[in-house]
């Protein structure tokens, strides 16, 4: 890995979703250049099928409940997904509020995923508030266990992309 944990985290996520796209005919991974969109250069965007997003939610979160609005749509309808990679160990209220504020910058994105880290209780409450604020968007958090589950599903050794998640007893 490099000396830059932010870069490693973002590129690990980019590689993980790119590898996932090899197993799915509809999944496409995109990233804007930082020059063209300075505020959004860190985000990863996906074009995904409705069923892929639903399966991702179920795979990475045991208590996942599909969003009502998207449950009514056909499995192959297109979802526009933004991945907000978090490299902090702890996702607290401030970080969730920032992520929530970023949602309005992406009016055409229907699904927002906070990727990585452990939500504090106040972070979870803030995430619930963000969901209430944006009832037409699906907003997910994939924690470290969820990242392991996704890597396992597509048969990627977790240590290759996210060495800090190698030890399953450490859910940071």
């Amino acid at each position, binding site marked *: 890995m490099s*000396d*830059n*944990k*932010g*870069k490693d*985290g*973002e590129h690990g996520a980019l590689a993980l979703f790119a590898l996932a796209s090899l197993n799915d005919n509809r999944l496409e991974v995109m990233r804007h250049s*930082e*020059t*063209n969109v*300075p*505020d959004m*250069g*860190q985000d990863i965007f996906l074009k995904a099928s409705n069923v892929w997003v639903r399966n991702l939610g179920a795979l990475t979160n045991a208590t996942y409940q599909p969003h009502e609005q998207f449950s009514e749509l056909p499995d192959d309808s297109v979802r526009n997904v933004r991945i907000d990679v978090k*490299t*902090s*160990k*702890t996702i*607290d*209220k*401030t*970080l969730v*509020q*920032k992520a929530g*504020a970023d949602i309005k910058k992406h009016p055409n994105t229907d699904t927002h995923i906070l990727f990585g880290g452990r939500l*504090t*209780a*106040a*972070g979870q*409450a803030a995430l619930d508030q963000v969901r209430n604020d944006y009832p037409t968007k699906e907003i997910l958090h994939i924690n470290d266990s969820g990242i392991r589950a996704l890597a396992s599903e597509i048969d990627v050794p977790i240590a290759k992309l996210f060495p800090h998640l190698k030890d399953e007893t450490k859910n940071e």
Partner: protein
Amino acid sequence: MSVSIFLVKFALDSSGAYVDGRSDLIESVTVPCDLFHKLAMGTEGLQLSQLEVFEDESRRESFQVSCYLPNEASRLREHLREIFLDTLRKSADEVGSVSMNHLEAKVINVILGTFKTLTNLDALLTRKLEVFCDDESVVVRVDINE
């Protein structure tokens, strides 16, 4: 890669403890790493302080966040303004008298992006320094994602 700078208000309890659930984000600015290093490196001896934030009222668990105390925020703003003026001069030299039609979009995007980041960060620091200077419940938090 980027550095996020937040202005956060905590409702401090009677003992002055910082509790996650009693915080609210006022505003934030995302600064590209290279620009942040230019800002921080050029400010001699600029130091980040560590603030302990408790996860909840029980205070059993806590985490650390990096922040700038008012003196450091003031020095950072001073250096930011020097960089702003320097960027202004260099941008003027780069653009010269060329009209928009003859200017590469990338050039104007970079200039606009840099100015936007600098002015937004200046506004955040100014709010802390001029509105909440002696208010310890309002914190300039820094998250360096690298």
